[in-house]
């Protein structure tokens, strides 16, 4: 793709109802985060460095522990991707996310008490520490470290890119951001490496990465936890405010569901847009413009919404795409066509400099659900590309297992379970997170079912539905500043995930690689310096990698998340609960999970030519990998000698 020179005039023309409130909120929020990092760095001076920097001295109370756990699990996907899914597929997403009802008790209660106790027994600071000590096996510790660094490095790059894209999406209509992007475009033009990047994306990446790396490196785990608390409160606050506003605006949930029942899926089209007579100057047709073809004797009224910025050059009749493609005809403008009767009647054309007529060149219907009423309020849900719908039965079962088991198997969650103060804290935190998730996930389904009715025609850019919905809801009550507060929720969600991953990689390199394998007798001063340097270096490397990120980004996030759980869940669970479990079983179980996961993806890559795993019997690859890991762990442990009695005694018997 080639992009024409970005001119301030065109960019400003694209902005609709722009407001700087998002950027002001973002700035206030960043100051708050940096302030918390400064406070936590003061504590670092008074405590044992490594335990404080990577584990908060195992002293987290209820609120800190509960909210850091909840906020780390809720990534940007919860506030951007998830609303987009509800909007695109309707009520069936309630089943897709349904297992979140049991996620808090499962992910915290299953391993929490034991992993915290075992880590205390030996003074373990990281998950590889726990595994190494539990089996007295440096080899196993190193294997766990290698897997964490391997998976998390990919994931960190993907999170940096994801965070920047979200920020870019949220700020797209803010004039200050648009002007900064234009300035950056001039600055990087012709520069090696940076010159190829999208300027707006680059601005967001640098801002995002700088803030996250600075506060994480400066304040360590406690800074991450405290900012997670702030971020967690922002997230739940955003949802709690949006829910009644959405219900009030739509006139009740019953009305939303009834209108969704009559809604049919829009068609993806390519249209030729023409004006009746040429103009003296170029005419801009902004992205997301409504184009209405009035009813005629031969055709009913038709309604389209453009999915790209287009312009009609001076003296010309036909519009062309602003972003040119080397292969496609520039006069074929991508759009969607609304097919729901009551929406076709209600929607008015966007006022433009001249009336625009649309001629459909190509039209593509949903593969599942086209022209079928009720498809948004039933399963398996409409799906543009798959014949068996969005959530066929086998996938519904898979996701129920995936969210719970995969969440429990994430090392970033496990390490938080090592940081709470006592078991009373764990009990109260499980309860707190259960209420917290209940206040977030099910209400989000309701809010974005309302959005489905309130804001038709966002299918082409459904990732923008969250900021758009906040704008509409706060405009209705004449409080635009509130929109800034609400869109801070996705910033918060992404940051709270990124900082944890950054610290995980840093702890793996400093503690597990350097201190435990290279120089166990390194002084605290050396370790301290190395920790700061490594955290900043990892962050900087990830940022540079994200300037030109690998393809298949979202797929990488899924690949690494499920790969970590597949490799860690079975060995860690058995290590904590089965005295007979031994080193051979643990190493082979972890290896089996990892290899199965890689194989499913490798075969998928060979078959489909993209980063997509094969799904035997339509089950998610996580389930297959986990089953293999569990079976191998148990089988190999039973076929080999029991563990040394001293180890079993140390971790399972009463102490004298």
């Amino acid at each position: 793709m080639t992009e024409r020179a970005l001119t301030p005039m065109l960019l400003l023309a694209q902005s609709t109802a722009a407001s700087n409130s998002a950027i002001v909120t973002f700035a206030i929020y960043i100051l708050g985060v940096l302030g918390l990092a400064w406070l936590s760095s003061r504590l670092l001076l008074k405590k044992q460095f490594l335990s404080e920097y990577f584990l908060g001295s195992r002293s987290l109370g209820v609120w800190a522990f509960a909210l850091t756990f909840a906020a780390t699990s809720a990534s940007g996907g919860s506030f951007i991707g998830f609303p987009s899914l509800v909007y695109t597929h309707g009520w069936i997403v309630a089943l897709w996310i349904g297992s979140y009802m049991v996620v808090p008790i499962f992910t915290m209660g299953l391993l929490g008490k034991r992993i915290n106790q075992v880590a205390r027994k030996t003074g373990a600071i990281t998950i590889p520490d726990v595994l190494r000590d539990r089996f007295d096996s440096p080899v196993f510790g190193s294997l766990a470290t290698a897997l964490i660094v391997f998976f998390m490095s990919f994931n960190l790059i993907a999170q940096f890119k994801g965070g920047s894209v979200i920020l870019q999406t949220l700020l797209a209509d803010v004039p200050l951001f648009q002007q900064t992007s234009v300035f950056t475009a001039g600055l990087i033009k012709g520069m090696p490496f940076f010159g190829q990047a999208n300027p707006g994306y680059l601005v967001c990446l640098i801002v995002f990465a700088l803030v996250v790396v600075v506060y994480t490196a400066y304040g360590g785990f406690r800074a991450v936890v405290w900012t997670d608390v702030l971020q967690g409160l922002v997230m739940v606050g955003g949802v709690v405010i949006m829910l009644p506003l959405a219900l009030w605006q739509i006139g009740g949930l019953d009305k939303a569901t009834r209108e969704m029942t009559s809604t049919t899926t829009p068609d993806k089209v390519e249209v030729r847009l023409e004006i009746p007579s040429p103009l003296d100057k170029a005419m801009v047709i902004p992205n997301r413009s409504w184009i209405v073809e009035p009813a005629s004797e031969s055709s009913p009224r038709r309604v389209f919404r453009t999915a790209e910025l287009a312009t009609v050059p001076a003296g010309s009749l036909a519009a062309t795409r602003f972003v040119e493609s080397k292969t496609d005809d520039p006069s074929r403008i991508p759009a969607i066509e609304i097919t729901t009767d009551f929406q076709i009647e209600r929607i008015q054309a966007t006022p433009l400099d001249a009336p625009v007529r649309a001629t459909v060149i190509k039209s593509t219907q949903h593969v599942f659900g086209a022209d079928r009423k009720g498809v948004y309020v039933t399963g398996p849900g409409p799906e543009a590309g798959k014949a068996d719908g969005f959530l066929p039965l086998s996938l519904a079962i898979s996701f129920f297992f995936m969210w719970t088991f995969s969440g429990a198997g994430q090392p970033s969650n496990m390490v938080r379970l090592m940081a709470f103060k006592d078991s009373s804290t764990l009990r109260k935190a499980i309860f707190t997170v259960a209420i917290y998730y209940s206040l977030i996930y099910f209400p989000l389904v309701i809010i974005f079912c309302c959005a489905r009715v309130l804001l038709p025609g966002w299918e082409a850019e459904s990732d923008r539905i969250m900021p758009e919905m906040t704008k509409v809801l706060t405009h209705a009550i004449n409080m635009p500043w509130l929109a800034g507060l609400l869109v801070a929720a996705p910033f918060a969600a992404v940051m709270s995930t990124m900082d944890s991953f950054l610290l995980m990689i840093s702890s793996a390199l400093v503690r597990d690689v350097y201190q435990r394998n290279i120089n166990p007798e390194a002084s605290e001063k050396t370790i301290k310096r190395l920790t700061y340097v490594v955290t900043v270096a990892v962050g900087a490397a990830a940022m540079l990698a994200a300037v030109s990120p690998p393809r298949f980004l979202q797929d990488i996030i899924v690949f690494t998340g499920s790969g970590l759980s597949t490799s860690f869940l079975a060995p860690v669970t058995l290590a904590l609960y089965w005295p007979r479990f031994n080193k051979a079983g643990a190493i082979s179980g972890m290896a089996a999970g990892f290899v199965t996961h890689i194989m499913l993806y490798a075969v998928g890559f060979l078959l489909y030519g993209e980063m997509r795993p094969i799904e035997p019997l339509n089950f998610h690859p996580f389930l297959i990998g986990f089953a293999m890991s569990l079976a191998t762990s148990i089988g190999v442990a039973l076929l080999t000698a029991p563990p040394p009695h001293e180890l079993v005694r140390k971790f399972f018997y009463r102490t004298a």
Partner: protein
Amino acid sequence: MKFPPAAKNRVATDDQYDPVFLHARREALFILGLFAACVTWSIFVCYNYGYLDPGEERAVIRTILGMPSWVFWGIAVPWVVVDIATVWFCFFFMVDDDLGEAHEGDDLAEQIEHMHEREEARHD
């Protein structure tokens, strides 16, 4: 498979096991049971009452509190029930155990000690 004789009679009785381990295991079994109940109920209700048959259209749908009835019975109700079960688990079932003092640096100290022992053995 022949196990080393020393290991054979080392199966501990419950009174020898660490009570934290026993409590945590009992709590983990409850959680697994709760998960199994959830997945069975939600999938059964949602699939049987919420899925379209091939070619079927539903122009009218029964709602409860504004949501499709299959969402109400299959997701909303179990969600509330699980929250109640979680309250019971946290405040009436889960035991407040003493998780012990953190032995900060013990594992590293032990590692350094072994390292020196090996070095001394090599010198000898």
